[in-house]
C-alpha cells in the first residue's frame, strides 16, 4: 500500500472508535479526533482534543485509539493531546447530530462546521427573563419542552423534559 492509503486506513480505524460515554457516536462524529498522521518511519500519530477539562473518558479514548491501531497492525502509535483550539459542540458533525437525535438525545443547536470555532468568550453574563428557544422533543417533536437541569450524568449533557409526551430526555448542551 502507498503511504497515503496507509494513512487513510489509520485515519479510518481511529475515526471508528466509539465514544465511551455516548457509544452511538464515533470519535470522529464527536469531533475529538483532530488529525491522524503517518510519519516517514511508519509511526501513526493520532491527535485528540478533550471535550471538557475534567472528562474522565479522555484516558479511555486515548487508550482505545491506541489499542485499535495496534490491533490493526500498526506497531508504532503515538497519541497526542491538542488543546488549541478548544473543543466546542460545533465540532460535532452533522452525522453525529443525527445519531444523537435517533437515540433520543437532543443534539446541540449550534451549527456544525469543520473549521476551528472562533469565540471571544462572553465577558458579562446577561440575566433576563427570556430564555433560549425550547428544544424540540427528540421523541415526539413537540416544542413544549423545558430544561430541568443544566447538568446531568456526564459533563456534556443537560436534563430536559417534554410537556407533551411527558418523557424526560437528555441534551448535549452547547459549549
Amino acid at each position, binding site marked *: 500500500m502507498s503511504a497515503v492509503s496507509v494513512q487513510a486506513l489509520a485515519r479510518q480505524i481511529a475515526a471508528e472508535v*466509539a465514544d*465511551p460515554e455516548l457509544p452511538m457516536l464515533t470519535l470522529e462524529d464527536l469531533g475529538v479526533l483532530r488529525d491522524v498522521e503517518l510519519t516517514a518511519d511508519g509511526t501513526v500519530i493520532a*491527535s485528540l482534543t*478533550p471535550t*471538557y*477539562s*475534567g*472528562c*474522565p473518558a*479522555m*484516558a*479511555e479514548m*486515548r*487508550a*482505545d485509539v*491506541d*489499542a*485499535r491501531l*495496534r*490491533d490493526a497492525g500498526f506497531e508504532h502509535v*503515538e*497519541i*497526542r*493531546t*491538542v*488543546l*488549541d*483550539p*478548544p*473543543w*466546542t459542540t460545533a465540532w460535532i458533525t452533522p452525522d453525529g447530530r443525527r445519531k444523537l437525535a435517533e437515540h433520543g438525545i437532543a443534539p446541540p443547536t449550534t451549527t456544525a462546521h469543520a473549521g476551528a470555532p472562533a469565540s*471571544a*468568550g*462572553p*465577558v*458579562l*453574563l*446577561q*440575566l*433576563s427573563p427570556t430564555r433560549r428557544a425550547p428544544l424540540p422533543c427528540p421523541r415526539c417533536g413537540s416544542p413544549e419542552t423545558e430544561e*430541568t*437541569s*443544566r*447538568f*446531568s*450524568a456526564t*459533563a456534556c449533557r443537560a*436534563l430536559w423534559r417534554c410537556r407533551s409526551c411527558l418523557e424526560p430526555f437528555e441534551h448535549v*448542551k452547547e*459549549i
Partner: protein
Amino acid sequence: MTDDHVYLALAEEHEGTDARWAFGTGFEDPLHGVDTDVPAGVDTVELAAACTALGDDALVSAQRLAEWCTNAPELEDEVALANIGLDLLGQARLLYTRAGQVDGTGRGEDDFAYLREASEFRNLRLAELPNGDFAFSVARLLVFSTWRLALFTQLAASSPDPVLSAIAAKAVKETTYHLRYAADWTVRLGDGTELSARKMGAAMEQVAVFLDEVCEAGAKSAVDAVALREAVIAQLRHVCDVATLVYPAPGQDPLRGRDGQHTEYLAPLIEELQSLARALPGAVW
C-alpha cells in the same frame, strides 16, 4: 482484538511496548503529547507559581463542591455541583501538570495535589471556607466563577505561555456554565421568599469580605488588573440587581491565600483530601 469493551482493550497486553493500562502509565498525564516548550522570555518561576495557585483554587473548590454530594437541596443540584467540581478538578490536573513542567522539578499532578503540606497551598481563602448553608455556597461560587471567567478570558487572549492560554480558553467555556448556575440560584433565592432573600443577602455580605483578595489574585502574568476588577464588579452588580439584592460593600480581610495565609479550615480539608495517598504511598486507584 475484537472486543468492544474498553476496559478489556485497556488491559490488553502488547508485548515489546510500554504498558497500556490506563493507570500508572503516561495515560494519566492530562497534557500527554502536548508541546511543552516554554517560549523564550517567559518567567518560568512566575508561570509555575501562577499555574500552581490557579490549580490550588480549582482543587480546593472541587473538594468543597464534592462535599455537597448527598447534602444538596435537590438531586439535580447535587449533580450540578458535582459536575462543576469535576470541571474544576480537570482544570487543576492540567494546571498542576503545566506547573511541574515549567518549574524544573518534573513533579506531576499527584505531587502537587497529594504530597504538599497545607501551608504550601496558594489558593484563595474564599475557596477553603466551609460550605456553610446553600446560599453561602452559591454566593461563593458566584464570586469565584465571575472572577475565574474574567481572568481566564484575559489569559486565553494574552498569556505568553501557549499551554496556559489553551487551558484557560477551555476553562472559559466550562466556567461560563458555572457562573450561570450560581447566578440563576442567586436570583432565585434573592428574588424569592423573604427568608431566602435574607439568607442570600447575608451570604453575599459574607463573601464580599474576600472580594479584594479575589480581585488582586492573578494580577501578575500578563493580566490587566484594573480591567479584571472592573469586569468582576460589573458582573456581580448585574446579578445583584436582577436578584433585587443590595450590592455588598467589599470587606477588609487583609490576609492573602496567595501568600500562604490560610484560615484554620484549609488544613483539615487537605488532610482529608490526601488521606488515602498518605496512608498508602504510591497507591494507584
